[in-house]
């Protein structure tokens, strides 16, 4: 009898346990059931784009503007990492450094994942080109940040499905030139693949965006002829009119504006899609009357008096860019600056601003083109482009500047035109003037902080070196 019983028990344990013990998470999608249709790939792309929100919400501005003479902290108890940026003394444990590193690579991996899978699924060829073009643009966009901030970086172009695959991959840093080659290749392909897509909105990549970025890449590489050529192609597209009112570019409802070439979208309304600019760019005053519900700022990135004073008289951009002084709830004011650009004055919730961040816009194309022309000796031809921007700003035109004066005029113009747009650090690095300008700024403020030679590249995040000891640190850190 016992024998039968045992057999019976063995039986039931073997018959159905395999099915019984396999459960799929019903409310989540597993990788095995996804990536089947065009729509799936679109969804995956949206996920890749979504990574840009985090990247631009603070870290790119901490490393790209707070570190410069544009912005400073107006808060008495800042975090260590913020202090490091404000004082241009970034260390390898700085959270913004690791955030840029991981955000960029996360987006890169999402793009790689799409690119690795898309050719295995058949769907509409146009859509496929578009998605590939977008993924390539995004990958290049992120690598461009990486290579500019860190120099040599690991180059990853494949997807990973298991920890073993990751362990087997060569994650060492590859020469910056390799990264640039990848970026240029991706952008060229992207521009081609997206060439016929004319209806894309500005939060998605487009051929114009790819070419604008490519122009910037060449400019950064000091390949001025190629830069001028590709930027001229963007100009000749004739589809990005300069906004009449500069302020509209940085205020609520700035989606899909004509001048915008590529934008990072945010949305207010407690949906977790807002940005922190409203809080970051305004001072940490308890009784500030800037926002509904008397929301306070946090004073993490306020304009310096230096940039406030650097606007020429009559510059329409000044009032659109910097608020001064701060109105208080008791009707008085306090003599502090605050940012106007990208600040959502309609939000009463910290971290819930709905103004989009304009990453690439036509004014940048114009000024980059002027820079490329000037650097190739065509200073005279460059003047009208600089003046286009000045005219919109309500400023008199410039004429007859020599090459180096023109370069300085451009530097100044870019500074006020692109405040808060994450350009200042890269502009100064590109022109080799970062140490001169920033060190002078500190000296003027009576501070002993200095940008050292080695600090022109950011440190590799220490945490990444712990995980992967084969990553070498940049010299000096």
């Amino acid at each position, binding site marked *: 009898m016992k024998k039968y019983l045992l057999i019976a028990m063995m039986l*039931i344990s073997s018959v159905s346990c395999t099915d019984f013990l396999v459960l799929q998470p019903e409310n989540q999608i597993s990788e095995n059931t996804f990536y089947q249709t065009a729509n799936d790939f679109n969804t995956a792309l*949206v996920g890749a784009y979504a990574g840009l929100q985090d990247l631009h919400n603070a870290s790119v501005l901490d490393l790209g503007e707070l570190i410069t003479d544009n912005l400073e902290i107006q808060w008495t108890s800042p975090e260590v990492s913020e202090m490091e940026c404000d004082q241009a003394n970034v260390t390898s444990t700085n959270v913004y450094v690791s955030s840029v590193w991981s955000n960029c690579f996360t987006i890169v991996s999402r793009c790689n994942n799409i690119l690795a899978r898309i050719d295995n699924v058949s769907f509409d060829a146009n859509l496929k080109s578009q998605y590939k073009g977008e993924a390539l643009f995004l990958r290049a966009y992120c690598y461009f940040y990486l290579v500019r901030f860190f120099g040599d970086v690991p180059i990853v172009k494949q997807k990973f499905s298991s920890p073993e695959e990751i362990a087997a991959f060569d994650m060492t840093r590859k020469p910056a030139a390799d990264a640039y080659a990848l970026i240029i290749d991706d952008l060229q392909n992207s521009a081609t693949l997206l060439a016929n897509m004319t209806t894309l909105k500005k939060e998605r990549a487009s051929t114009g965006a790819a070419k604008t970025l490519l122009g910037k890449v060449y400019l950064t590489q000091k390949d001025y002829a190629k830069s001028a050529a590709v930027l001229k192609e963007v100009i000749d597209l004739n589809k990005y009119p300069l906004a009449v009112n500069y302020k509209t570019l940085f205020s609520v409802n700035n989606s899909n504006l004509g001048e915008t070439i590529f934008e990072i979208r*945010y949305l207010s309304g407690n949906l977790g899609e807002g940005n922190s600019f409203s809080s970051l760019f305004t001072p940490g005053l308890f009784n500030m009357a800037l926002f509904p519900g008397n929301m306070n700022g946090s004073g993490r990135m306020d304009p310096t008096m230096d940039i406030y004073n650097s606007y020429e008289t009559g510059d329409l951009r000044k009032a659109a860019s910097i608020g001064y002084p701060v109105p208080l709830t008791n009707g008085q004011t306090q003599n502090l600056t605050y940012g106007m650009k990208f600040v959502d004055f309609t939000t009463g919730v910290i971290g819930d601003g709905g103004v989009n961040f304009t990453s690439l816009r036509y004014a940048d194309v114009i000024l980059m083109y002027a820079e490329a022309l000037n650097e190739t000796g065509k200073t005279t031809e460059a003047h009208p482009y600089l003046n286009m921007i000045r005219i919109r700003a309500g400023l008199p035109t410039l004429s007859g500047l020599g090459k180096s004066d023109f370069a300085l005029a451009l530097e100044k113009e870019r500074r006020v035109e692109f405040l808060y747009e994450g350009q200042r650090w890269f502009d100064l690095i590109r022109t080799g003037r970062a140490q001169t300008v920033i060190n002078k700024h500190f000296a003027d403020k009576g501070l002993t902080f200095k940008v050292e030679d080695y600090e022109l590249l950011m440190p590799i995040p220490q945490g*990444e070196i712990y995980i992967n000891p084969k990553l070498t640190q940049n010299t000096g850190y």
Partner: protein
Amino acid sequence: MKGKTFSNRVYTNYRIPNQPIFRLMMIVFLCLFMVFQGIAQTDQGKVIRGRITGTDGILLPGVNVILKGTAKGVITDSDGNYAMEVKGKDATLIFSFIGFTPQEIAVGSKTTINVVLVEDIRKIDDVIIVGYGTQRKKDLTGSIARVSAEDMNQPSASSFDQMLQGKVAGVQISQSTGSPGGNVNVIVRGISSITGGTQPLYVIDGFPISMDSGGSNMLSFGSSTYTSAGMVNNIQSRINPLSAINPSDIESIEILKDASSTAIYGSRGANGVIIITTKRGKSEKSKISFDASYGVQGIAHKLDMMNAQEYAQYVAEGRDNAYVYGGGNASDPNSMRPISQQVRPEFRNPSSITQSTDWQDQIFRIAPVQNYQLSATGGNEKLKYHLSAGYFDQQGIIKTSDYQRYSIRSNIDVIISDKLKIGSSVSGSYSTGRFPNTEGHYGTGAILTMATAISPTIPVYDDQGNYYFNQADVTDGLGFLVSPLIALREFSDKRKVSNVLFNNFLEYKILDGLTFKTSVGINFETNTIKLWKSSQIPNFTTLKSLATAGVTKTESLNWLNENTLSYKHIFKEKHSLDALIGLTAQKDSYDRLSAGASNFPTDYVTYLSAGVVNSGTHYVSEWSMMSVMARINYSYAGKYLLTATVRRDGSSKFGANNKWGTFPSVSVGYNVSEESFMKSLTFVSNLKLRLGYGLSGNNQIGNYTQIGLLSPVNYVDNNSLNPGLVPSNLANNNLAWEKSAQINFGLDLALFKDRISLTADIYKDKKTDLLLAVQLPAASGFYNSMQNVGDIENKGIEVGLQTINLRGKKFEWTSNFTISHNENKVVKLATANARIFNSANQVTEVGSPIASFFLMNQTGIFQNAAEIASSPLQSPKVQPGDMKFEDITGDGKITASDKKIVGSPWPDFTWGFENHFTYGDFSLNVSLNGSQGAETYFMGGEVIYCLTGVQNQLALANNRWRSASEPGDGVTPRAIRNNFAYGFGTGTSRLLFDASYVRIKDINLTYNVPKKITSRLSLNSVAIFADVANAFTFTKYPGYDPESSTSGDNLTSAGIDYMTYPLARTYTFGVKLSF
């Protein structure tokens, strides 16, 4: 369209696996049933009758009468009578009854055998419930502790785990919060996992319950919790899941500690197993009992804060120091100073301040706690029942907090024939609780930091009787943003839990000694969380913020089928065998729906419907497991004992390559005192040695950790959400349970007729394959992957000592002392230098205990400029009076990298000491317990012991550095507004305190009304009692309670106290009647 096909796919997946297994089990069950019917035998013999009494002549119902060498037996009826068929003349009957010495009587030619059983004070013959069966304590080879109902006597406690504290060696119990119905942590032999679950397995009447919905970590409760989306994610469980069980229904609790005992629970046994057995009917006269108690609770210990004058002086000092620091002169008038450094004129002259508010008195209250229990128990030889209903109501000592539980239970056993027995356990409970936001930073409206940090110089009410508010206090950063009473009123967190547990069983005696048992059980629980935050709750520096609300409803269903076949036989008188095989299947489904709303036009209606519902989620999660198991207990002449078990568990949680795991154990015992050479040592009444080794597992590793998953990440499209999906979890087909290999050596010793009995165990538990998030290079696009890579070790010693100190005719004094020591050490992590951050201030590293405190090590206070100059550079701005730190990296600079491990939240030892005195009809019970050597990071100190010249401070801050000639206590820095010193206000060893304590946990005085009085009232028994719980605590810890842990059941960040709900002192009076 796509969504639809997808859900279809899921639907079919969901159905298929379930049905065949159910069907198969039913078929097998029916087949077995028929087979057993067929083999039932009839036996001819004579009938023996008799009556069993105690020495006092009282009839004893429920006595086991067993034919020796068989499992055949009957039980005496309510009049102590039995009748039993016996074949053969050489038969011997064994009469046994719990609490009495068994007797063996040879039948011979007798037909009537009356027996007088002698009461046995030897607890050693207690029957212990082990997994899937029982064993006599004498035959135990593993380490199992038993606590019975009469030892659990704290009427004001809402859950039984609180009552176990200090009673069981090797089990560390801490009440992490005093919140009514709140979390209690139970750690069996040390923390057992780094990322997996650390909870023991709870088995209620044979049903292993799922505790997956735990997670009472209040550290994560912050301002982000208040957004609409945050409300949706606010799913910390506030109600202790174990409080669903009415402690009055519990008959006994067995705690399986070592792996040789827990291996029978396989992949769930590694954290220890706690078996709860509820009261069942006995064949005795029906008895109805009514217990009632009423208590009052008050705060046991308020924080010692600065008074108004000390506060004013401190604020003035902080502002002057900040102003001087900025280059000013302390004598400069306010007009020259920035607003944050101005000093109010009255603060210059503290003695002029007349207003002095004790804000703690405003939020605490004297609160009642009441507990009622009505039960009926009884039965005859065919039917036994125990029915009960209970009501527990505790108002919290913080205003607006409370907890109520309604519970009901029916336990029924029916003997259908001498072969067939069925039974049912049905219980239901409904609990509700209100939980004000007590823990955390005042900026999130947390009551306790608000009430302690708020200025004592402002009144509670203004002239109009409204809550006092003055914008000027806010503007110059002095007073508090809103009154804590507003925060109490304007935030609400209501919880409801309904739990029903059904478990039916059928037992069939196939042959003498061979029994088949099958059971089917269902545990269903629903949980509701309703959160509301009005616009009056501040969000840090923002005084008023948008009102938000959230609702979460969860449903979990857990079903279980167990089938066992057990065989008991004694061969040739000396070889006793008890064997078991079994097959079980269990499945758990968890379903959570939550929604959040904001944009409420008013604060009047607190339901979602009044606002705009703009966030929500639906989450489901399931696990299933299937197991086969076997156990053999063998003993030779009661001297040599052997237990061997094996269990094989298959689980949906494990990766494809590791679906099944095997968990064997073996243990041996040697009853030395049974040896003939011990007979001469009459003072030794029992001596047993035990040695066991076993493998068990921890399957609390997440339900889908092994599957490659995508997660939604939204983006924005045309002013609306645009949903995206990104890879978020790498697949890991090798994922498996966490393994535990434990060796245990134990000694049971009883001396002088059990006047002294001692149980000591020493163990070493090596946990391997712990699941860790192996960090991956960010360039891979994944942050980490969960892999079985870590090793930890727990080793320890535990001693339980029970003594009968005095025993007179009327007076008796007995004691129970337990003490345990456990040492936790991390042996291996993903890499040799890996450092896992368990919290902002805790790390797990190889060579140290899990969750060690990792802090800047303060070495003192800078007394003068020369000392600063000769010390490692901290910041160019450091001045005398600032904190001085150890340069751990040795680079001559003090940075945030200069942290080291300075302690751990794990005690060196915990102990309990219980004394029970009886004098005539009075009995007095005094329980003490304590913990030595654990540290707690007093995170509340980041606010009320931070010396930044704003918030009110612990009176400890009166010992601050004021000047080189008034250096204070050498630890507390100077007061300086805004912490200009960059002196690392948080994460320093200054806020780490010794959390050792000695507590008089409970004093209980009971008067048992004499029989002669009760019988006149036609009552069976009456007892009245008075009880003081949490009577007094001796500790140096400056927070509310040294056991406080804001992370709740998240043990890997235990020992952080962010102003956790304090424990109450409770005075209770009660009565127990039975008739």
